């Protein structure tokens, strides 16, 4: 067995542990992103400026600044204001807030893709705005935007590797440890690339499957 393969295999458990961390990090961030994005997406379409303006500012600001800077801001900056997170939480919070802006735009497009008559029919039956959104508009919107949300999940999986810079232990960080001990960059980072690819490829297949199941 060549030396590099032995090194990769010996360190495989550590890499897989890193992969699990990446999945946890990404999943939690996606959930936060979805929650934020749903409300902000609705906020952007609100009749009330008090919802619309803050929602727009949030989306524009997040999309207009690098994720790297956002990570530094949360992990190194916020403690100066008395808000301290551990590395993992800081990464989840930052990625969640970051993703929320992109999800918001997707949700907004999804809501707009539902014909206006659906909302009016719901309201004409006496439903409140919230009920109409919850039972009529959002289910249809999410069905329409499922592929886009899947892509966002995939993008986030890849971007989560940036959390390395604040020391969050995930797949990329695990790989760096291994490389610093073994000096075998190519096989280790190659293996890491392969693991990322397997995750995103599986995700895209899952999304496609869900899509076909949800079709009317």
């Amino acid at each position, binding site marked *: 067995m060549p030396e590099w393969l032995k090194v990769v295999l010996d360190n495989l458990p550590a890499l897989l542990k890193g992969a699990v961390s990446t999945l946890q990090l990404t999943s939690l961030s996606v959930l936060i992103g979805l929650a934020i994005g749903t409300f902000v997406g609705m906020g952007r379409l609100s009749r009330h400026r008090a919802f619309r303006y803050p929602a727009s500012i949030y989306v524009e600001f997040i999309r207009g600044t690098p994720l790297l800077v956002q990570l530094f801001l949360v992990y190194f900056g916020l403690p100066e204001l008395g808000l301290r997170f551990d590395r993992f939480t800081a990464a989840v919070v930052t990625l969640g807030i970051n993703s929320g802006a992109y999800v918001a735009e997707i949700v907004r497009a999804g809501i707009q893709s539902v*014909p206006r008559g*659906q909302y*009016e*029919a*719901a309201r*004409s*039956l*006496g*439903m409140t705005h919230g009920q109409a959104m919850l039972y009529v508009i959002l289910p*249809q919107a999410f069905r329409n935007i499922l592929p886009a949300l899947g892509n966002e999940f995939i993008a986030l999986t890849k971007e989560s590797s940036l959390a390395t810079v604040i020391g969050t232990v995930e797949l990329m960080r695990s790989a760096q440890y291994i490389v610093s001990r073994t000096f075998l960059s190519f096989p280790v980072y190659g293996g890491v690339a392969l693991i990322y690819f397997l995750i995103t490829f599986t995700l895209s297949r899952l999304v496609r499957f869900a899509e076909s199941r949800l079709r009317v």
Partner: protein
Amino acid sequence: MREIILKIEDLHKFYGKLHVLKGINLEVAKGEVISIIGPSGGGKSTLLRCINLLEDYQRGKILFKGEPIAHKNVNRIRTQIGMVFQQFNLFPHLTVLENLTLAPLKVKRMPKDVAYEKAKALLERVGLLDKIHEKPANLSGGQQQRVAIARALMMDPELMLFDEPTSALDPELVKEVLDVIRDLVRSGMTTIIVTHEMRFAREISDKVVFLDDGKIVEVGSPEKIFTQPDNPRTREFLRHFLSV
């Protein structure tokens, strides 16, 4: 004298600078059937939509059973005013049954079994009991519109609004929908219907309203409006309309 269910006083509606309703006055008594006819763009849909406040208006008053309709009571009042749209607007992600029971369950907090029985009875009435578990996409336009009517009736409305309920239908599907509406009207439902089905309007209405350019140009019995209208514009419209 019969109770006045709906009273519209000096209603004005603007879309930006466009003056769409120019002082509408209308009274609807309990059990009365009113047809609104008139050229496209005259404001018929807008008038119906103002009644249940799907559109805001700038001047005037609309009273439902004596109570002004406003944003703070509109959800309650809407449960008493059924609306049927030209495009049906069934909820495509829900089955026929779920379309019917959603609002009763969520808005009226009707027990599930009661809602289910009621839905079955209404689907029976519109002749679609066998479609109860279908998705709207699997129904014809006429069937969808009949489901939409049943959905509105689930709330036990005291007033029904129809906005060109058959205009989006293929000609051969018009009759089945008109039959359902006729049946409903005969059962005593107070109804306002915007329609281009002149023969049907003449048959079912107590009163026909000719609305043109945001104004009620003429109101009268169907006999009067369809045979000897006073206003030249009504005459012109009907001549043009009945000749095509």
